[in-house]
């Protein structure tokens, strides 16, 4: 599933936006999704792992991804579920968008 929100999906659930509105919605979607994934990952970790992760804050993305793959075995499921949940919320509120 695509991480980014695309216009095809929005049109499939009856949402038609102009470019400016679509850009704002995509930014908000990306920010919300990342926040939720981070919260869920932190919930999966114990205290020692959280401290270890905070020490890797300034490291590169490659190192960070390697560490997450090693310490969060359900990382892929977490990301997919959060994407599905967020898209479901958008579909539920499609009349208000």
């Amino acid at each position, binding site marked *: 599933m695509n991480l980014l929100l695309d216009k095809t999906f929005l049109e*499939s*659930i*009856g949402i038609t936006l102009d470019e400016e509105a679509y850009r704002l919605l995509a930014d908000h979607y990306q920010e919300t999704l990342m926040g939720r994934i981070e919260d*869920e990952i932190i*919930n*999966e970790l114990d205290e020692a792992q959280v401290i270890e992760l905070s020490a890797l804050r300034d490291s590169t993305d490659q190192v960070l991804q390697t560490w997450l793959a090693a310490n969060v075995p*359900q990382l892929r*499921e*977490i990301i*997919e*579920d*959060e994407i*599905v*949940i967020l*898209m*479901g*919320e958008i*579909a*539920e509120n*499609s*009349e208000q968008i």
Partner: protein
Amino acid sequence: MTAPEHQPRPDNSHNPDDPDYIDWGNPRWPQEEYRWDDFKWDDFDDVAAASQPDQWQDWDDPISDTQPDADPETDPGGANQSQTNQDDGIEYFDPDTFEANDSPEQSHRRRMLRVARKLLGRIDNSPAAQAERVLAARRDRAEQDILRPAESMIVDDKEILGKSEFVNLQVQQAQHDITNYKAMSELRDSLVTPRKNYVDWRRKRIQIKVDRLQRKVDASPDTRWNRHRKKTLDMFKNRVEWRKGQLNKYAESKTKRAEVLAGRIDKRNVQLQKEIDHVINKKIEAQRRKVERTMYKNDKGHTFSSFVIHPIERTNYMNSLTAAQRQEITKQAILNIREKNIKKGRLDVSHVVDPNTESREVNDYELAA
């Protein structure tokens, strides 16, 4: 002879020969004013008339009749005794003695009044009974004072429950408005139907008149009256055409209105709604997986007992087993429950549980325990 005012008056009230003597025991005081010779026979006419049955309506008053008779010991010259006093020679009304002359309705009323008098006589008006009634009333008030705070708490709870119920009602009402919008348009159409039927009925009725008049015009000779009939027939025909036009206009306006309503209702077509439902269902599944994941994380052991805590997962798990596996797990669960109850002191060690006979009584909730 009267004594001077500055001297005490001699007490002659007990001397019958004294002119100031007052006989308090005789109700006809002073005696000189009510001698027998002073009465005339005309004075008794009213009494005689009052003794007739048609003059009893005043004495049939239920309010006065329900008053109990005066007790000779406690009320020797009382007002209640006046109607039954026979000393003055007048035959006063007595409900018990005049019953033979009563009508059936009056007789029935008198019997009921006697029952009421007996019931009134059973009320204990002694000081002890009155004190007991006062104490009982005080006890009732004290109980009410104790219960009042609890009742107010119950009212508060009801208000809280009422608020949540109000929110639920609002949600239900919103769902009802959304899902039944199409039904509302159908209801409008159904309201239009009686009017349409009435218009059809009127049109048919006029058409029958037109046909009848047409037959009469065709069968009659060309006279002055027949020409008048033709004019009337033309007028009827014009009216029929006018009504048809009106009906067409009416139907056309209703069709347009229905199209507008249908456009509003089908704003989101069926395919779009299916797609939205599909996305929402996937979201619900993802949320369920998220909850299960959190539950597994909190339970490090992943044991069977912790696994079956979650109702959905427990049901899915049990459904995935074969009958033999399910029976074996149920037996094990029964033994676990027995051990827990023995540890908590709820069950005696000597109590033997036979899983083969009690396995049917174990449900999912007992397994979770």
